[in-house]
């Protein structure tokens, strides 16, 4: 039963407030992913939990015990580094046995444990080799093996597959998920790759400038981003964001993209919830929530396709509306090419309105 709690933790690097009053509870056996751009404080938070950084204020509890004053070796957590940090002068076996020898485990038991974990990770044939003789994927397996042997209270992973090539990264992602399902240790995983986060996490923690932006399941974070930062960080391609004005005329609400002559029709009930229509607003809409038609249709606005990116399973079409480019997702080959006239409709149930000044979502849903 290992629960990790962060209570009001703060840290500064000189003038930079790198961790700003972070509160979070990671439940037992949960896989939590810290997602954010580089420099957002996610790695520093992880290192603080491991004891590799000291925090300025706040409390860190692992399994109910305050650990923020303990040295790393007393916290019983395992850490997987982006660089793997395998000791080059030791063989794979010795690397994996290293944490066990720290606690003075008997020789036979060390060998048995390393063998067992190596079996799980399918790296038994590599045990006698040195790290310099291994491929990227195998290095990563050994690094995870070194973390697993000790059966630690928590696994902390700092972009463990960030330095692998794209194909290998996909394979290792599946393997990490399998390992977590099998081993079930409480895991915190840091990444800047939102696809990794979506694929692996029980819950995603989006961080920006040292502040937690949103904590939720991948589906929640994707469907209901609390602010523009989260909206534009999660999803690929990212959510379209356009300056809009909102008006209600002739019984139908209209959302007009800045610079456009006509507005999209929205249910008046939705727009009635906008507290102050005069306020500058931004519309957020995911590419799959834009419906594209090749013939004029009821409630559709005329526009012109700008660029078409064929991606195999689907196409991404850039369409100019007013001053903004909206990117829509279509069937492959649906839009012939640049210059094709198209008609658009936005799905109001999947549209988001954000306050332009604060960037926060108005939280208006149909």
């Amino acid at each position, binding site marked *: 039963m290992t629960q990790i709690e962060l209570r009001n933790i703060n840290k500064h690097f000189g003038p930079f407030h790198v961790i700003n009053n972070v509160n979070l509870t990671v439940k037992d056996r949960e896989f939590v992913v810290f997602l954010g751009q580089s420099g957002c404080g996610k790695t520093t938070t992880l290192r603080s939990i491991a004891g590799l950084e000291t925090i300025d204020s706040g409390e860190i509890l692992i399994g109910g015990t305050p650990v923020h004053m303990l040295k*790393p*070796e007393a916290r019983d957590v395992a850490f997987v580094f982006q660089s793997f*940090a395998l000791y080059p002068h030791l063989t794979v076996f010795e690397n994996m046995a290293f944490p066990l020898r720290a606690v003075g485990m008997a020789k036979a038991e060390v060998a048995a444990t390393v063998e067992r974990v190596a079996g799980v990770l399918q790296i038994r044939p590599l045990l006698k080799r040195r790290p310099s003789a291994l491929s990227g994927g195998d290095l990563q397996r050994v690094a995870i093996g070194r973390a697993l042997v000790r059966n630690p209270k928590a696994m902390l992973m700092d972009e463990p597959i960030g330095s692998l090539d794209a194909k290998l990264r996909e394979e290792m992602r599946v393997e990490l998920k399998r390992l977590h399902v099998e081993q079930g240790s409480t895991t915190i995983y840091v990444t800047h790759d939102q696809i990794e986060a979506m694929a692996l996490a029980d819950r995603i923690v989006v961080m920006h400038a040292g502040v937690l932006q949103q904590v939720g399941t991948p589906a929640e974070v994707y469907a209901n981003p609390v602010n523009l930062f989260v909206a534009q960080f999660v999803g690929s391609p990212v959510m379209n964001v356009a300056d809009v004005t909102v008006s209600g005329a002739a019984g139908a609400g209209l959302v007009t993209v800045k610079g456009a002559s006509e507005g999209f029709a929205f249910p008046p009930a939705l727009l009635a919830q906008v507290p102050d229509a005069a306020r500058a607003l931004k519309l957020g809409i995911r590419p799959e929530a834009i419906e594209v038609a090749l013939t004029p249709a009821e409630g559709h606005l005329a526009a012109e396709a700008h660029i078409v990116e064929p991606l195999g399973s689907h196409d991404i079409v850039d369409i100019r509306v007013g001053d903004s480019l909206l990117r829509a997702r279509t069937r492959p080959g649906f839009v012939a090419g640049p210059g094709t006239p198209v008609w658009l409709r936005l799905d109001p149930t999947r549209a988001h309105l954000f306050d332009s000044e604060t960037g926060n979502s108005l939280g208006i849903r149909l």
Partner: protein
Amino acid sequence: MAAVRTAGEVFRHRASLVTLLLVLVIFLGPIFWITATAFKPRNLATTVPPTVFFEPEISPFVKLMTKRSQIRTAPAPEVYEAAPWWEKQVYDGGEKVVRSGKGEVQLSGYPSRFLNSLIVAVTSTLLAVSMGTITAYGFSRFKIAGEDDWLFFILSTRMLPPVVVAIPMFLMYRAVGLNDSHLGLIILYTAFNLSFSVWLMKGFIDEIPKEYEDAALVDGYTRMQAFFKIVLPEAATGIAATAVFCFITAWNEYAFALIMTNRRAQTAPPFIPSQVGSGLPDWTVIAAGTFLFLLPVAIFTFLLRNHLLRGMSFGAIRK
């Protein structure tokens, strides 16, 4: 070597081989000369043109290690017959080995000077490298107020020409009774080498990724254990290189050894030239002393060659 070579390239290749051979001859010439002279009978040492082919003998080494005196007349046949083979070679050269009243061979000053050199050089190298490594680790891994100033200060201790401090050092050493003592020379050479050792080791330790220690810390080791189990093995190449340089400096040091010591703690460098003496110098003995003096550095470097040649292996880190 599968690439096609043009005639010009072949010529350049051969020319560079010839040049290399020439350079090699120039560099190895003096060493060959010393080695050859060390095994020559005395009468062949200074011939013009130089004798290249001769029957090697060890009389120069026997004479180097023992006290001896000139003899005017050849020894009596029974004395000659009773002498061991190595002493016969000395008799053949017109000298005899001096023995004590009990008939024991009396040693010259060389063996004890050589031993002094070993004691002083090995001890000061150990001290300079170990202290330098720990200091460098501190500078490399921790934030230290005025770090750059401290490092410059450490380097600045090497900036004064040794000659400038020789006389003050001699007076201070005499005042505290450190002159002509092993400890005195060890302190002096350690101080010489320390700044060099700190700077060199800092460069090597900076190259060792901090993640290794971070990993060792979360693996359950203290920082001290991480230093000994991870940093030291990783820094082996740097330690070997630093040790070789420190050893060479301490081993070859001449000026301070000449000033600070005269008998008890005298090292080999000031002793060897003192054997030139007055009258006709015996070049074979001096060459033998020099030849032996060259060996420890050669052996030390040879033993550490793998560490010196092995590049830092960073195969396990992705940058």
